[in-house]
């Protein structure tokens, strides 16, 4: 026979156990849940945010649920860790409205859902407000270049310092002409929109003018079909400008392959068999740089290289006669052509470098004084 006091004790223990289990197993519903179109994107995502849960609420994670129109709520993505307060749904379609629910999951797998958010659609923005600072700097930079181009066109003499590798261009072409051998021009593996490839193609235009004059064969194996078209157009124009359309041979500019090492193998084979007297390696290069430069060196060709790929420059410096380092490649066209547009552009870029100088020195002085608004600004735009 159980006494009344024992009954009371049992009831108390049971109530406490159930209460404890309930407080541990039943998480608190996520509060202040919002779903908004992600700002500054192309309309391909929606950002869901909610308030961080207080500690000791027994939440082990969050599951996001999504509803399209009047459809069912469906879980998306994996279970998010307990401390998460935001989720970006990137699997949405334009023109479709979505509603979201954030489900809190406890350690005992008990769940509780938040309120459903209002329906939201993903829309693309035309202007990325986070990039305003870059836009302003680019405007200033462009203004400096345009100003200097007008200055150069008005007849003002713009100085460009001596670049040793470029002074050897005439020597290399002259040597090939005297030896009766071809010139090989390799643009590397970059696409048509790569800055180094564009610079390499512009230098090629200048080289083509000279080969047109000297009637020296200019061979250009291309890695990209679009680069091939641009190169053919540029070389053809150079030959026309020099009044030698008859000397232009389209077959000397050809597509080899898009594959990196097959391209290297093919160009190596050409170098060994044709033994060009001069080799220009100008553009974007990767691991094939040393293979090409060493093979060119082995046949005794005069080699002028130029690239912006920092990891390949050491190989060119070691294996080639002359190397254009980084931005020298971009300055090359102005140096070779003396065209006011390129000369003005070079001086405009130098003005940009002066601005960087000023930012560096001012930034260092301010940081040393404990003022960090320049780094904060740079961090915001980075």
């Amino acid at each position, binding site marked *: 026979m159980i006494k009344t006091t024992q009954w009371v004790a049992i009831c108390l223990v049971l109530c406490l156990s159930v209460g404890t289990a309930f407080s541990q197993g039943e998480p608190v519903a996520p509060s202040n849940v919002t779903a908004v179109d992600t700002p500054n994107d192309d309309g391909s995502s929606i950002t869901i945010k909610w308030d961080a849960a207080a500690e000791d609420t027994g939440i082990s994670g969050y599951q996001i649920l999504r509803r399209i129109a009047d459809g069912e709520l469906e879980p998306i993505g994996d279970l998010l860790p307990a401390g998460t307060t935001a989720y970006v749904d990137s699997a949405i379609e334009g023109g479709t409205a979505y509603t979201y629910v954030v489900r809190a999951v406890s350690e005992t797998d008990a769940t509780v859902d938040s309120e459903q958010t209002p329906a939201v659609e993903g829309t693309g923005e035309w202007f990325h407000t986070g990039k305003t600072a*870059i*836009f302003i*700097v*680019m405007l200033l930079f462009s203004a400096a270049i345009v100003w200097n181009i007008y200055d150069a066109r008005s007849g003002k003499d713009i*100085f*460009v*310092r001596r*670049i040793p590798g470029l002074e050897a261009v005439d020597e290399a072409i002259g040597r090939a002409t005297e030896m009766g051998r071809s010139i090989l021009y390799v643009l590397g593996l970059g*696409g048509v*929109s*790569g*800055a180094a490839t*564009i610079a390499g193609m512009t230098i090629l235009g200048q080289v083509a003018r000279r080969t047109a004059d000297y009637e020296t064969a200019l061979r250009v194996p291309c890695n990209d079909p*679009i680069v091939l*078209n*641009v190169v053919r*157009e540029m070389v053809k124009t150079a030959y026309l400008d020099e009044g030698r359309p008859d000397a232009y041979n389209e077959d000397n500019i050809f597509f080899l*392959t*898009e*594959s990196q*090492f*097959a391209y290297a*193998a*093919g160009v*190596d*084979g050409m170098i*060994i068999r044709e033994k060009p007297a001069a080799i220009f390696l100008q553009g974007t290069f990767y*691991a094939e740089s040393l293979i090409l430069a060493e093979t060119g060196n082995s046949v005794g060709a005069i080699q002028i290289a130029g690239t912006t790929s*920092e*990891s390949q*420059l*050491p*190989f060119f410096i*070691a294996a080639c006669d002359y190397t254009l*380092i*980084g*931005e020298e490649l971009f*300055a090359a066209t*102005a140096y070779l052509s003396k065209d006011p547009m390129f000369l003005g552009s*070079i*001086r405009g*870029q*130098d003005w940009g*470098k002066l601005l*960087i*100088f000023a*930012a*560096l020195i001012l*930034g*260092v002085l301010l*940081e*040393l004084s*404990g003022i*960090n608004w*320049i*780094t904060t600004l*740079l*961090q915001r*735009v*980075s």
Partner: protein
Amino acid sequence: MEVFGIWIAAFLTLCIYSFLYRDNPFYRFAEHLFVGMTVGYGIARSIHQGFIPLAWTPLWAAIIGESPAGYFKLIPICIGLLFFARLSSRHSWLVSYPIAILIGFGSGAMIPNAFQAYIFEQTRGTIEPFGSIHAGTLSGWEIFEAVLMIVGVVCTLTYFFFSAEHRGPVKWISKVGIAFLMIGFGSAFGNTVMGRVALLIQRVDFLINDWIGSISALF
């Protein structure tokens, strides 16, 4: 079948390495095979990953009325088709248009990113440690590194000034800049050579273990 593949790979590896001796028919065979196969593979990949999903499928969906938005694809398709104008000497000038669009689009997409990564980010990285110097959280060596970094950046940047003559102090500052560049290149050279040696070891490992191993497995 796997052994057959190993033998082909080993044969072609040796054919390519035979170039180290001199140009020879084996190298020429491997070279032409390699170039031909990659061109064929490239064409097939362009059709399956480019033409079909990006041009044909959306256009066909528009034609059969499934998704009229697919008709917008006609704009890039027509621009791309202009490349074929080269085949006609009378209309070859039309090629300039897709080229101009591609270069313009490429530059427009690339320049803001280059500004962000190469100018803003690197400028911040160079000046930020000086804030820590002010806060007194850097060791003596870290302060030396921060100062060395700013000296290196200023001197190297001076070397890349093209519209000013390098004489007097500018000449000496740019010479220090070149020294910084060469030290950097030396370090990069060593790192990359180590990587290339690792590739060679991988290939030799394939020849010794997989290929010669497959021979010994036969007996």
